[in-house]
């Protein structure tokens, strides 16, 4: 080896060890579900938001990891006295990833598209109260509402309300162009999506230079991928039974947080005998929530007594009103004229909370005399039969949308709860902007549906993630389905 070669080799070696000491700037994050496409404004799939929310696309407001609503592309806003006119002041100097300027017209375009007649926005209801959206100047937008809306800033923070550009809307499903801290780089369908740091980002530059989302649907394969360190983190880890193994391993950290997913034993309120409130009350007392959490979720999950997230400051703990008491359940059934019990259907969608939980609930119901015929359904079938066809007695499903107690005001919604007082209360709540009064109304709403035993309220789904111990800044909670990487970094 000549001297020159030797020095080259030595300096190369120094270079390699040098870079090894600098903190890593790329990350591979495992996700269970692959998004069907990358437009968060035209599909309900949480998998889309998991990749693009806050990373690629931003809205006027955005969710923080604690569920708070913070300024996003709108730096501030003024609300008129009557609560009908909202003036948003946009951040200046923001560019879309294709180099075009972000201006008020983009906001007008995005919101008009979402609320249009032929809109395919999965959460179109979020935009229902909007009367008009106007660009005052390049950086000011005026939104006029038909009625005051205390939820408006919250609604605008959803992934379905992000700002898109008319220039790139045609190809948004495969080449998303947003204003976020990361730009879309590559998608190997069925395998992975890569995003890279946006050098022109208007806000604080992220620590990561690139991130790869890898899609691994099989729980055992997910476990293997983390163990073999093929992925640096796994957001929404699908195998709770294995978390103890990661906790015991110093290479990993386990993040247990909250989600917006109320897991409920949905009950067809129009179908006899569930149209009898006594029967629904009996159902509530027949269920041992902790046994379901332990058996189906390996202990992860918080018992709930109503359709509301326990980490929300307005949450009221109503689990006491439906405590596990099989004797009381039998007595209530007898009172309702079903001393010998009855038979009903229990239709279960694919997630393990439903399939495992369903077996446990079936056993608990059998104990008080209610026989269930269990049918396992795929999601598409479930949507067709249960959700749209309303052909079911009982089903188990997690409602993952944030602050979705409003579904109880829709009598045509699949569990068919029709209570005029509750519907009026929800209308009042939407129009109310005073925080104290809103809290009070939200509490009343929770008590109403709990007191009517509309559904069996089981538990709040936990957000479970596993990550390399050296990673910081990952969201433990999931206030919306997102994997916000803007604040994520390696510690050394």
């Amino acid at each position, binding site marked *: 080896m000549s001297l020159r070669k030797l020095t080259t080799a030595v300096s190369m070696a120094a270079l390699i060890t040098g870079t090894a000491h600098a903190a890593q700037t790329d990350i591979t994050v495992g996700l269970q579900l*692959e998004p*069907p*496409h990358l437009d968060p404004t*035209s*599909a*309900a*799939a949480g998998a889309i938001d998991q990749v693009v929310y806050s990373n690629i696309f931003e809205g006027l407001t955005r969710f923080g990891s604690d569920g708070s609503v913070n300024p996003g592309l709108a730096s501030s806003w003024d609300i008129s006295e009557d609560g009908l006119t909202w003036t948003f002041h946009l951040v200046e100097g923001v560019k879309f990833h294709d180099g075009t300027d972000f201006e008020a017209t983009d906001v007008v375009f995005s919101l008009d598209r979402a609320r249009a*007649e*032929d*809109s*395919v*926005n*999965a*959460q*179109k*209801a979020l935009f229902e109260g909007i009367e008009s959206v106007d660009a005052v100047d390049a950086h000011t937008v005026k939104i006029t509402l038909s009625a005051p809306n205390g939820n408006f800033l919250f609604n605008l923070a959803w992934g379905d309300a992000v700002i898109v550009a008319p220039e790139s809307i045609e190809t948004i*499903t*495969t080449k998303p162009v947003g204003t976020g801290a990361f730009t879309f780089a590559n998608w*190997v*369908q*069925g*395998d*992975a999506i890569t995003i890279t740091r946006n050098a022109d980002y208007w806000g604080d530059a992220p620590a990561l230079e690139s991130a790869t989302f*890898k*899609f*691994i*649907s*099989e729980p*055992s*394969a997910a476990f*293997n*991928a983390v*163990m*073999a360190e*093929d992925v640096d983190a796994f957001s929404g880890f699908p195998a709770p039974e294995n978390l103890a193994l990661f906790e015991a391993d110093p290479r990993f950290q386990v993040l247990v947080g909250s989600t917006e997913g109320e897991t409920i034993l949905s009950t067809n309120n129009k179908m006899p005998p569930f149209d009898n409130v006594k029967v629904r009350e009996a159902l509530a007392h027949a269920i041992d929530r902790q046994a379901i959490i332990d058996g189906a979720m390996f202990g992860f999950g918080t018992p709930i007594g109503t359709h509301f997230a326990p980490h929300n400051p307005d949450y009221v703990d109503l689990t006491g009103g439906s405590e596990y008491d099989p004797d009381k359940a039998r007595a209530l059934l007898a009172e309702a004229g079903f001393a010998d019990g009855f038979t009903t259907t229990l239709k279960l969608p694919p997630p393990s909370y439903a399939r495992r939980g369903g077996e446990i609930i079936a056993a608990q119901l059998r104990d008080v005399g209610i026989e269930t015929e269990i049918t396992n359904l*795929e*999601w*598409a*079938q479930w*949507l*067709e*039969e249960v*959700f*749209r066809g309303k052909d079911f007695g009982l089903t188990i*499903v997690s*409602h993952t*949308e944030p602050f*979705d107690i409003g*579904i109880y005001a829709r009598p045509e919604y*699949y569990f068919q709860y029709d209570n005029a007082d509750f519907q009026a209360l929800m209308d009042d709540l939407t129009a109310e902007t005073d925080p104290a009064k809103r809290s009070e109304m939200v509490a009343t709403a929770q008590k109403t549906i709990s007191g009517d035993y509309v559904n069996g309220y089981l538990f709040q789904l936990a957000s479970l993630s596993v990550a390399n111990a050296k990673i910081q800044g990952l969201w433990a909670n999931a206030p919306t389905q997102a994997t916000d990487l803007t604040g994520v970094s390696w510690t050394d």
Partner: protein
Amino acid sequence: MLRYILKRLQALLISLVVASLVIFSAVEIVPGDPASFMLGINAQEDTIMALREQLGLNVSLTQRYFTWVTGMIQGDFGTSYTYRTPVSDMISERMVISLPLAIYALTLSTLIAFPAGIIAATRRGSVADVSVMGVTQLGVAIPNFWFAMLMVVVFAINLRWFSAGGFPGWDAGFFAAMKALTLPAIALALPQASILARVMRSSLLDTLSEDFIRTARAKGLTRRQTLWRHALRNALIPVLTIIGLQFAFLLAGGIIIEKVFFLPGLGQLIFQAITQRDLIVVESVVMLLVFAVILVNFTVDLAYGLADPRLRRSR
């Protein structure tokens, strides 16, 4: 001969039409709507209707069938409902994994099965034969996904020689890509090799007891010469038939192995498309597979015709 070819060709076309009808109706009968799947449980009915309109689902079944078929004739497999990309692109992206994986697995299984089968047949009753029979018995019995998981635990998690799964793409280099396919190929090859070795053994044993083998021996050929020149060639015909069948299976049938190793192959594509009610993808992929099988059969028919003049003449 021309008449024979035309007859075969006619049969091929009829099979294709029948297959397309069966596939289309079977898939469309399945309950579930792609639009409502996409929009989830907060969607309003009018939004679902708007999406159905956009996806072209609001036309009659017959109209959709004809659009699909005429599209395919022109080489257009349609656009996926959920991914919104051309189905043909999706298929070719998956093919670059599924096809090499199937070939890799088949090569491995042949390399294992041929020597094992030959040794077992020529030394019938020996220790070698008994052990081949024992091991292949196990190979058929062991579920390949279990074996795959076992390999992941040993080679990926404990020894760290391989990744636990995934595919880096051919851009990452030939060896990196082949390395990623190695554990899945072994898992797929194990049961196939076991079956193949057993078929090889029994077929060779049958051939070895034929009269012409005795004649060959009598005319002074050694055991080895008889085996290589006469027995093996004749014994190979049923073996090749099995290999052909296995290849068709491996192309899309390795779905469980694809799941274990999270490989984005053809099997996963079909599975995903079915759960998402991406009907057009299911229909087109299945149709393509049917076409491949029918085409292979057609070629085989032609080859038979060439080889055996009697087939040509019989009507």
